[in-house]
């Protein structure tokens, strides 16, 4: 009976992952900017969901629920000593490498991409952009995921758009459109 139950749960988990795995992974990546760490986070997300399924009270959609866990796990990682160590070693490594004209050109190009501009934003602004424009969640859903109010989310979205506008060229900026939250 237990084996049957376990197999059924595994099937259920596989189905959930097939449907929601990809976007959870991408959300995690947009938080931590490292695919291998994003994979670890997503693994933790689905394990947490699998082991504590009874906590999902179906008040929100499963997508929102999984995004919420992903966001929390990503925050946990960003706050962790592991991340701080990672960042420190990253800085030391780049500091040691030589500057060349080619590298400068590549870095200048990278600076104008949407991704690079996004990663330059503080996490509180970056995450609202990710959740609103990339995950296409509503303001109310974002507020629920982040545990804040609708107005806070709207304010952060407005400021995040302003910050991003300063970093992007006009053609790139148009991807955000003129949204009224």
């Amino acid at each position, binding site marked *: 009976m237990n084996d049957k139950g*376990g197999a059924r*749960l*595994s099937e259920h*988990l*596989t189905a959930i*992952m*097939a449907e929601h*795995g*990809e976007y*959870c*992974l*991408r959300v995690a*990546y*947009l938080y931590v900017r490292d*695919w291998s760490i994003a*994979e670890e986070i*997503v*693994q933790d997300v*689905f*394990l947490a969901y*699998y*082991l504590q399924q009874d*906590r999902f009270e179906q008040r929100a959609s499963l997508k929102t629920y999984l995004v919420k866990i992903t966001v929390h796990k990503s925050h946990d990682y960003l706050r962790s000593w592991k991340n701080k160590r990672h960042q420190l070693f990253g800085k030391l490594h780049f500091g040691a490498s030589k500057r060349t004209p080619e590298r400068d050109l590549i870095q200048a190009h990278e600076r104008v*991409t*949407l*991704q690079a501009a*996004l990663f330059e934003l503080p996490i509180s602004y970056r995450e609202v952009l990710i959740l*609103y*424009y*990339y995950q*296409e969640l509503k303001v109310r859903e974002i507020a629920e995921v982040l*545990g*804040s109010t609708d107005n806070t989310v709207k304010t952060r979205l407005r400021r995040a758009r302003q910050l991003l506008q300063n970093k992007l060229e006009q053609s*790139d900026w*148009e*991807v*955000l*459109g003129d*949204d009224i939250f």
Partner: protein
Amino acid sequence: MTSFKNKLDKEIGEAPRFTKALQQRIVHSADQQQHKQSRNWQYPTMIVGAIVTLLFLFIVGPLQQTVYPQHASIIELAQSEEIQQLSIASNWNENSFKAGRTGWVIGQQQYGKGEETKLIENVLRHGVVAQKDDYFHVINNMWIKFDNGQVVKLKMYRKMEQIAFLDVKTNTFYKVNDEQAFTAFTDFNFKEVPFKFTAFLVWLGVMLLGGWVIERAVRWKFKIPKEPRFVNDKHQKTVIILKFFNCIVLVIFNIKTWIIFIVADFALFLVTMLPHLVTEYYFGRHEKRHYVAVINAVYLLIVFIAFVIWVQ
């Protein structure tokens, strides 16, 4: 909105990243985890630690069993030994005894070797065994430890121009007929610190305000909702049953006058707080409600220790 998503997807790569291998790894981990459910070791550790501490306090404290040479009477003891420690508690009730080992009882006066102990030694040395009459009324209780380690509990009585004492253990009554000893005892100022009700009220107010501020801060920091007060019906029933149980325990402690013993108060604190912590952890962990319970418990423990230091 979609243009943002499309552009970002192009930049970070449109090919699926969530591979079959990753899926299988997660399923494998999930299967393994299911067989060894994670154990929440913090709370059992805390409870075991608290119980061990309590037992330790009992072992080293009030239940300490040491066999000391027993003297025939208090008078003989007072004549051969000096008083090492003395504690006095005002108590007009014949049926209770409120003094105890120094440092273990709230609201008693405590003295080391000095004028006070000399005075009591003098009173005890002049005692004679007598019949107790109804005109004597009890004025205070004394816990005395002599140099040889022997401990006696005495009830001090007074009648007009006479004092007397009762050895609680042997139920032997002694009168002090010496006038000089009586005068010296009644004239002596025992440096009793009067209970300052205003200071107590201020202390209580600061304590309550501190508790309120801390709870607000924890709720704000961790975004813990205040409403609804209970997670579900079971939570509500459990909390009500616990409160009822706590009230009964409190009444028993008062009736038995255990409330004056610091160890008993600590036990009361544990009996009240531990089930509360476990309940909040069990029902409110998902919403981090148990953080409020944990911080409250820590705060109350600090307040309890501060109170004990204050009344000593």
